[in-house]
């Protein structure tokens, strides 16, 4: 999968420094939670479940929800 692409870089090039997991973890948790909330509002709010009453969110993102592939109606 990913390995064919490593050949264009000369074999002598050093492996780049990885970001330590300890430094990555808090940002990963923060970023994933934020992303999940965003995806929830685009993809599922006022569809299968609803935190807010009414249909305004659903209707506003309606076309995007269909075209981005989320189940709708």
């Amino acid at each position, binding site marked *: *999968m990913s390995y064919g*692409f490593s050949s264009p870089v000369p074999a002598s090039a050093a492996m780049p420094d990885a*970001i330590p997991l300890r430094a990555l973890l808090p940002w990963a948790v923060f970023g994933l939670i934020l992303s999940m909330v965003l*995806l929830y509002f685009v993809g599922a709010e006022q569809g299968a479940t609803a935190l807010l009453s009414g249909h305004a969110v659903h209707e506003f993102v309606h*076309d995007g929800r*269909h075209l981005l592939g989320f189940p709708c*109606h």
Partner: protein
Amino acid sequence: MAGRLLARGMIAGVLAACLAFLFARVFGEPQVDLSIAFETARDAAAGMAAEPEIVSRKMQASFGLFTAAALYGAAYGGIFAIVFALAYGRVGRVSPRALALLLAGAGFLTFVLIPDLKYPPNPPAVGQEGTIGLRTVTYFEMIVLSLCVMALSILVGRRLIQRFGQWNGMLCGVGLFVALTALVQSGLPNINEVPADFPAIVLWRFREAAIGMQVVLWGALGLIFGPLATAVLTPGGTGRHRVG
């Protein structure tokens, strides 16, 4: 550094979403309009009153579509940046730009194409209101399982490459990915709610546009994020002058 990559991932996602919005606006919206016309005609024939328009069609097709795309782009841009930060320096001697493009391809496959093969995007008028719960749950299940299959195939594939060499190991990894995908997809319930008289060409064009929009989104995300990440990871590096 991880925080800066995350922010840039989300920015790249929003920029990519701008392009995806333009694509969807040109190729997707005409099919949405045709589907709504079908729906309206069907409801009128059945003697049902027209659905009240809470948000105007014009608004849905412009700001609504753009907002949805931008939030979606920001979300997947963030997830993408986290995976990039995790992979960089751990998967081999790959430049940030090549890694970004590679991961964008993997992201498209995992989050879009594989789930869409089982549960393709549907235009308005396709899909029954009563099954929205089931359809939403199975759709997100499909995405989670697709992610698991991809992660497992990569982890096992790396072992296989060590054992059988680059080419053969990679083929085995791809074979495993295909087999697991088929297994997972055959285990999930089939859902077909396309009305018998719904025009096939509209359905086909809509799905083309929906998947095309995602190709634009993920392709642009990978290409935009690469130089942005290069600037973070190698100050003064090759990507820096391309950022602006």
